[in-house]
């Protein structure tokens, strides 16, 4: 019966071979073809089957770890708390080491301080105060006028606490104490540099630098 049916299914231009002449592998279903396309009766490559099985096992193991055991290393919130705790511990150690190192090293020269301050300024402050401190949305640092005073401690207060309503952020979590002192020194050094495109004076005139 079977063979008879297959005979009837044959296309007019069907070739009668049962296996591929190149590979000697049997065709699937004898003579069946689709618009001249034949299919070989090869099994699945074993390595592919094993990859499939392994990925299934890994996947279910992972899902079980998460859903059943609520494993700390893969629950997102816990992962975050751990990362933050580890970072805090690390920075504390680093701060202590840094303090020891600073004590044993000669103090930075004024040029070094200004150069370091400029690096911070060019990364952060210029966005609102202009590339040369000429003022943009934030006030001009190069003229004689100051809104909150021009003593280093005045500037420090502003950088640490911010002037939120005016758009000045608090940078205490983005800059270290050392970086803040350096950038203050740099800002104060900009006075009188008279860059182009200066913003109009704001605040009160301060005579003494």
């Amino acid at each position, binding site marked *: 019966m079977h063979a008879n049916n297959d005979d009837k299914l044959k296309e007019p231009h069907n070739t009668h071979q049962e296996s591929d002449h190149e590979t000697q592998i049997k065709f699937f279903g004898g003579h069946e073809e689709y618009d001249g396309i034949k*299919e*070989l009766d090869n099994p699945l490559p074993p390595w*592919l*089957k094993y990859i499939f099985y392994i990925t299934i096992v890994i996947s279910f193991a992972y899902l079980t770890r998460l859903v059943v055991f609520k494993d700390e290393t893969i629950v997102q919130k816990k992962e975050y708390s751990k990362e933050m705790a580890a970072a805090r511990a690390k920075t504390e150690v680093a701060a202590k080491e840094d303090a020891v190192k600073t004590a044993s090293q000669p103090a930075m020269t004024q040029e070094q301080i200004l150069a370091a301050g400029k690096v911070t300024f060019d990364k952060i402050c210029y966005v609102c105060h202009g590339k040369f401190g000429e003022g*943009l*949305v934030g006030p001009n640092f190069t003229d004689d006028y100051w809104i909150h005073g021009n003593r280093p401690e005045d500037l420090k207060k502003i950088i640490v606490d911010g002037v939120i309503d005016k758009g000045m952020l608090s940078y205490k979590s983005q800059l270290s104490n050392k970086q803040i002192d350096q950038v203050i020194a740099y800002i104060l050094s900009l006075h009188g540099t008279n860059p182009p495109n200066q913003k109009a004076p704001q605040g009160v005139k301060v005579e003494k630098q």
Partner: protein
Amino acid sequence: MELQKFSYDNRMTRNFAIATIVWGVVGLLAGLLIALQIFIPAMNFGLEFTTFGRTRPVHTNAVIFAFVGNAIFTAVYYSLQRLLKTRMYSETLSKIHFWGWQAIIVAAAVTLLSGFTVGKEYAELEWPIDIAITLIWVVFGWNMFGTILQRRTSHIYVSIWFYIATWVTVAVLHIFNSLAVPVSFMKSYTLYAGVQDALVQWWYGHNAVAFFLTTPFLGLMYYFVPKVSGRPVYSYKLSIVHFWSLIFLYIWAGPHHLLYSSLPDWLQALGTTFSVMLIAPSWGGMINGLLTLRGAWDKVRRDPILKMFVVGITAYGMATFEGPMLSFKTVNAISHFTDWTIGHVHIGALGWNGMLTFGMIYWLVPRLYNTKLYSVKLANIHFWLATLAIVFYAVPLYIGGITQALMWKQFTPDGFLKYPNFLETVAQLIPMYTIRAFGGALYLTGFLILVFNIVKTIQAGSFVAEEEAQAPALHSESEMKTQSETWHRFLERKPIRFLIFATIAILIGGVVEVIPTYLIKSNIPTITSVKPYTPLELQGRDIYVKEGCYNCHSQMVRPFRSETERYGEYSKAGESVYDHPFQFGSKRTGPDLAREGVKTGKLYKPNAWHYNHFIDPQKMNEASIMPKYPWLAQKEIDIQSTPAKIRAMKVLGVPYPDNYEQQAIVDLKAQADSIAKDLGANGIQTDSNREIIALIAYIQRLGVDISNKPVKK
């Protein structure tokens, strides 16, 4: 058995092939344009219509739905008739399908450039066009099943299994993801909000890749690779196993686009694991494609068409290995939001979809025109250009993506971000973007060579509209049954049952993932301090969506130290419950904006800064690559649309007070006036009815609610 005479309709195949080529040029040009814009902001020509946020969706839609879409239809209309030994079911349906699809593409291009968008990636089109897509898709299915049911072969070949799965899955994805409440003609709000919207969107988005870019192209591969090479398909058994496992598993993988987001952990884990389980089923397709060429490698060396197939299938294997790797949370923590993802998808698009399409066109057009390809040499040149182009495109994006991610994550020993200024990390990418654009230009050049070659071929040949064929009529049911028939052989001669099984296979994943987020409250914990947007903020949000800001800015702070230090508190599921649509984004060409409005936050900027920055970003940051948006200061807010928008939001369950529609305009104006006044105090004179005011109001609201009161529960 008496032979029946009939003819194949080549007109529609020809039409779709030409449409593929035309839209290919458009899609690639749009791609090159945005590749240039990303490092030369002035390449938007100062026009709102050609600015990145609007042209990028045009590129993605043109390539996916116009170029690849028409290529799919070319393959289906050619192979279906021949595999089933019958003519297409209805010439009228074919025509409606063809012209309807092209009209949709034109409508898509025009509306996207004009700023009509839903704001969901690869599903940006507004509701009237979504309805048109649904109708045309039904016409396509009707025509396809009509053809299958009038076939002269007993069984349906593996290509057709893939066509069937494609048709049903795309229909399901498109309909459910597009559900929305219309506000007006060409404006609607998506039915889902926040995390739920994100889940539905990426269930859709990922499976647009799976069932629009992958399964129909596997069908294409199963027809054209054996046809062109004259070799039998490597393994029938493998085709069964990889077909069913692929369509069943693929649908679950969507959440891997939302790893480390505020999506519940269990859903993220399903995204990861089902992606990993997809390696073998995907490679099954690659193996069946490549090993079909066994015994024909000498041909492959000579024939540019087979060379294109080999590179295309290899690219498919690479992309489907890389995809699961990117779904590991540890890898995704680096790759996500960077250019790595862009590189990854282009291996698939340029390699798999592009190369297979080119090969098909080079083989098909000479046959449709009863002639030879004008120049095999030019096709060879195209092959080499395209292959080189893929390398030039992808490699710099991999390098750039990894570089930027590592810079984002780097801390100083003191515990501060090493690169607190986002722009510093962008500056590193400019050379990479330049090389990528060169890669894109190479790929386009290759494609233009194809255009020339095909035009010359068409000119030399004469079109065979009707191709004569003959075959015996289909046997009756009883004759086809054999005792040794396997269950799958049975299914292959029962196409409707095949369709039903395929539908069940693709529905399971979606049902298991989507429904619990509605039914189980703990998936999205409520935050009482989160309130609906004010009318002005809502208008501003619509402008944010309209300008496509989400194409470059994410709103999703992931729970990493490097992100909470840079942006602030990580995003919670309860924060986006009124966000129709969600705007998590998928790429950070610019910084994340989820906490932009938090005054005590890391990123806060005053209104005046935002105003100046929108008008001219380069004035605020010389190195910025953001385009200028001067028109926002000129165009007026569509204030009269406010009541309708509030009404639509209320329909969606956003708790505005009763009759708030009437109060909304008054509130909107008051808030706008106060922002204009603040700008005035800072030296910026502007009318309060400008779009920029609404957008500033929205930006200043971002991420604020959660810090107002302590989080509850």
